[in-house]
């Protein structure tokens, strides 16, 4: 549609559109940029009102302060634990479950699908789920962050839809050649399903990395705090005046080189760093996932 010669109106429209998009991009990215610049600032410039384009007197002290506190490392460990274990378990359970669900001839298939879909629209709510975790004895355990969210209806349905598109003749050929059903799935179907597996794994990983609410209600135990929760304490909870320690136990006033704000900014920068680094490369997989889900919805 862009091969025509442009009229005057088109050129005006183009300029207007491109300029407004660039401005919009700047608005979108500026908050992140501001915080990153703030994290490299010295206390003098950090408390100024103004645009932060570049750090004026560059300083790494806020990072040193953050990286000195143990709670960040244990938070990182706990976040990685739930992200890695949770993602692996979710992907395996979802894929094999969806495989079973994809068989049109399976008796009661519709009933099972409905049974799963129903949970998308109705649930017990906060307190009954909380009581369940309590009764299972998971309170304060890292598994309370993994087990309750092992899979969900959305993942299962998009995986099922994907598997249903794979040619069934491949399956039969493998079975005729004497492969067991399990071998057939692992050696033939699984490699063909890598697109959907990567989509589920990525969504699951981002979900785990960003979760904080479950950690707040199930696992607010010293040493088992996930990074997001540590961050929540640092960023959102009120800074106790004059103690020199942010909630969560990060020091900020052990010297005069940092302020609560630069330390907060540095902890934000550290947490979003892995996302910002990997996200541009993974973006297309996320988009693919939403497409698979939406068009079949």
């Amino acid at each position, binding site marked *: 549609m862009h091969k025509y010669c442009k009229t005057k109106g088109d050129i005006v429209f183009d300029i207007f559109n491109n300029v407004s998009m660039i401005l919009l991009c700047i608005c979108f990215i500026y908050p992140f940029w501001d*915080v990153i610049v703030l994290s490299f600032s010295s206390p003098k410039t950090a408390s100024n009102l103004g645009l932060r384009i570049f750090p004026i007197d560059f300083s790494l002290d806020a990072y040193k302060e953050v990286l000195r506190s143990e709670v960040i490392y244990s938070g990182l460990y706990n976040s990685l634990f739930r992200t890695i274990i949770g993602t692996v378990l979710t992907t395996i359970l979802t894929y094999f479950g969806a495989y079973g669900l994809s068989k049109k001839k399976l008796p009661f298939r519709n009933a099972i699908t409905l049974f799963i879909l129903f949970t998308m629209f109705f*649930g017990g709510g906060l*307190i009954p789920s909380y009581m369940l975790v309590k009764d299972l004895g998971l309170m304060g355990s890292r598994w309370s962050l993994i087990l309750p969210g092992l899979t969900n209806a959305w993942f299962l349905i998009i995986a099922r839809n994907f598997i249903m598109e794979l040619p069934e003749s491949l399956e039969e050929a493998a079975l005729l050649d004497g492969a067991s059903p399990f071998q057939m799935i692992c050696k033939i179907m699984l490699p063909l399903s890598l697109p959907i597996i990567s989509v589920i794994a990525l969504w699951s990983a981002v979900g785990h990395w960003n979760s904080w609410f479950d950690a707040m209600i199930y696992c607010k135990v010293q040493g088992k705090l996930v990074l997001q929760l540590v961050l929540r304490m640092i960023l959102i909870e009120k800074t106790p005046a004059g103690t020199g320690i942010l909630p969560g136990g990060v020091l900020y006033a052990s010297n005069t080189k940092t302020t609560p704000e630069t330390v907060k900014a540095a902890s934000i920068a550290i947490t979003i760093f892995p996302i910002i680094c990997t996200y541009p490369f993974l973006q297309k997989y996320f988009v693919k996932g939403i497409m698979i889900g939406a068009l079949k919805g």
Partner: protein
Amino acid sequence: MNIGLREMALKGIIIKKVSIVKKMYFYYLLLLPVIAYFILFHYIPMYGVQLAFKDYRILDGIAGSPWVGLKHFIRLFTGPFFGQILSNTLIISFYRIVFGFFAPIVFALLLNEITNIWLKRITQTISYLPYFISWVILGGIMIEMLSPSRGVVNYVITLFGGEPIYFLTEPKYFVSILIISGIWQSVGWSSIIYLAAISSIDAEQYDSAYIDGANRFHMMLYITLPSIKSIIIILFILGFGGVLSSGFDQIFNLYNAAVLSVADVIDTYVYRVGLNDMQYSYSTAVGLFKNVVGFILVILCNFIVKKISEDENGIW
């Protein structure tokens, strides 16, 4: 001879049947953990909903606690908080629908008109980014942006001669902050579905419009927009299914005691009375009220959408 053949054929059928049963058995085996998971973590909490009709006593457990009928619901509907949290929830959802719903459509239309492929890609990448960051961090960033002594928003205000504003503790600004930061977080991501719909529009329509002398703005208004009309309507109706969920993560990380009068929604109320005040039964009742109404709305919206897409022969 004849009999032998028949026997063999029969045997073959039996083997095939057995192998089908075996296969099905195997598929059930695959599904078993999933079904067990849903029973344990979704259906048992649904059973626990009976708490809403009981007075919870720790020693008796959920099943053993005494029934009290509709006591908690009566308390909810006649209590002083109900009107406030319900209206807060609906007001926030209303503005989210009015502004938050149309923003991604406009954004997708403008994105589609970008002629420079690199600018388009960079815009997409940047606009999707906030969607992948938790509200804990986005909330922390918002606090910094809106800070009266350091934030860029107040810098711009002082540039124009205004006085710095304490945005996050001012009830009259809070809802706007929610809506704007919500758009910032999700406008790019929500535009994907519209972009996909736009990309499936037949190019011939644009060709003939060009011959008829239409410029790009006309094409956008009279071809692109009408072509994605059905998906807009569908998503609009589906959006109503969620009016009682007004974004717990976002509100919870931005609100504070000073703005509770406008920021307290059903979800935050359920959390506070349930897990802070330990009123388990009452909180379950509030949650159940929300879930039941939400469920009815979702079913209703899905039903309407189905009707519409049958009539329109829509994309779905």
